């Protein structure tokens, strides 16, 4: 269980995280979603006590993580797969971590096998691909068999087979009753992985709900109507409370169902040439929700 309480972090004049409060529960995979620069990594660094909050607190398993003398048996984490020394072998890296936490050496062999790096264990990490480094990072996170696991963008650099493996691993860890907290800036990565979602933008909480609840937001229909009397229909729909975008004869309508539009058109004897409904995807729901808080829009003049 991770309890984040009114967490704020400022770096000079930049507010990376602002008044963030949420809880991550055990037994589920919780996705931590937000556009680039939203403050996900900053939040995770504060969970691990690497960065000191400007105000607020994070409690992990009943205690502030920094107060624990040794961490691996409490929280396993992968913040950045590059946070290793390229000159060491995978086995040396893991052996040092294990020894610092009094974890037996046989556990090192175990996790290396589990992540599929047994063959590469004695090779220097500088020769590893990003995907292999991600696997090594996941192995470090698993070393202490911890009840809480944190992963920052763990799917970066993995091939499709690796992505499926990681998803299955997360689901299994959650099924064992662990707290699994996984960040991503892509909804598509979370869609098939997370049970719960914490969505942030510009450091602030946007949504904390189940994936099902989140997708319900996305089922808001968008209806496309084409009619020669578009001006008349537009006014009628606006009176019903719909949001309408006009493009020539075409109206893109949200907030009123296709059925209701058909009824209104019939009542007022307006001919319709085209009427179709389309529900938006999760990705669109995410984009819509975070649109106001995206910091770096593609093609945006900087």
């Amino acid at each position, binding site marked *: 269980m991770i309890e984040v309480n009114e967490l704020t972090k400022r770096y000079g004049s930049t507010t990376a995280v602002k008044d963030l409060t949420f809880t991550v529960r*055990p*037994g589920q995979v919780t996705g931590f979603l937000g556009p680039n620069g939203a403050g996900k990594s900053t939040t995770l*660094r504060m969970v*691990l*006590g*690497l*960065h*000191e909050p400007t105000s607020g607190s994070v409690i992990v*398993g009943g205690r502030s*993580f*920094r*107060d*624990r*003398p*040794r*961490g*691996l*048996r*409490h*929280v396993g*984490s992968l*913040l*950045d797969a*590059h*946070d*290793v*020394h*390229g*000159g*060491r*072998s995978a086995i*040396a*890296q893991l*052996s*040092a*971590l294990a*020894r*610092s*936490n*009094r974890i037996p050496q046989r556990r090192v062999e175990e996790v290396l096998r589990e992540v599929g790096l047994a063959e590469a264990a004695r090779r220097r990490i500088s020769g590893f691909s990003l995907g292999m480094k991600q696997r090594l990072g996941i192995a*470090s996170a698993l070393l*202490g*068999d*911890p*009840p809480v696991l944190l992963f920052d963008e763990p799917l970066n650099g993995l091939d499709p087979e690796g992505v499926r493996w990681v998803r299955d691993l997360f689901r299994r860890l959650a*099924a*064992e*009753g*662990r707290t699994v907290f996984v960040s991503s800036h892509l909804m598509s990565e979370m869609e098939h992985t997370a049970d719960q979602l914490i969505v942030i933008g510009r450091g602030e909480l946007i949504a904390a709900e189940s994936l099902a609840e989140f997708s319900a937001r996305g089922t808001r229909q968008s209806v496309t109507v084409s009619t020669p009397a578009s001006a008349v229909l537009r006014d009628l729909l606006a009176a019903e409370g719909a949001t309408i975008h006009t493009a020539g004869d075409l109206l893109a309508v949200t907030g009123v169902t296709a059925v209701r539009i058909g009824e209104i058109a019939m009542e007022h004897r307006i001919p319709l040439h085209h009427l179709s409904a389309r529900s938006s995807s999760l990705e669109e729901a995410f984009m819509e929700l975070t649109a106001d808080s995206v910091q770096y829009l593609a093609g945006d003049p900087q």
Partner: protein
Amino acid sequence: MTTTYAAVDELGADEPRARFHDLVAAEWIKLRSLRSTWIAYGATALAVIAFNAGTAYDTYNYWPERSAADRADFVRAGIPLQEAFTANAVMVMMLALGAIGAVAILGEYSTGTIRTTFAAVPARRSVMAAKTVVVTAVSTVFGAIVAGASFGLTQAILDGRDAGLSIGYPGALRVVAASALLAPVCALTGMAIGSVIRHTSATMVASVVAILVLPMVFTDGRHWSAVAGHATLYQAWSRLVEVGSPRTDFPWTTGGAWTVYAVWALTTAVLAVTSAQRRDQ
């Protein structure tokens, strides 16, 4: 499902007591698993021993050209002990060990390994203390080997001209001990500067200033300058390897020089251990 939950609740509950010596062992694994560690220590050892042996070999070579009086003075003036560890060799050793000590911590900061380390062991001071212990121990062994080998080799070479001294000769042991212990003190200095500055190039410049420039700047001209100079490691070493009467207007004791070693070692160790505590990593 419920049973698994209960099991996970118990995870971490049977955690063994945290022990400092496990951290020391972990830091030792980290140090020895880097090929660059061995290359740096090995190359420095070879260079320093070669410098010293080369000087002794020069003396051996040109011995026949010395006058009888000159030869007699050679041992009386304690020159064999000066050749046991030369000033050039000690400069090379100090700079190299400063860099090795700095890299021991900068290797973690520049690669981001420090975050992995502190996420595994939130007790940052303990980690830094363990790292300090390992760097000090390895550098002490290095210093002992290099100073011992230099003494043995140079005196063996000089023995070819009957000018070599044994370790029992007055002052000989002090030359070896002062040269050997300079290695860990310089490594600690580099490590402390690296821990505070955390950036490679700035750390290297600061190490060179602390180790090489300061002892050159503070000369024996005035009293305050002489005292400041005496507080530098190089001048303390020079005092300790000095044989016979001091050649300065501001003489000082070997006890004073040992104290300088101790103060540098302690101050830099404290800096290295505490520097990471309050800062974001």
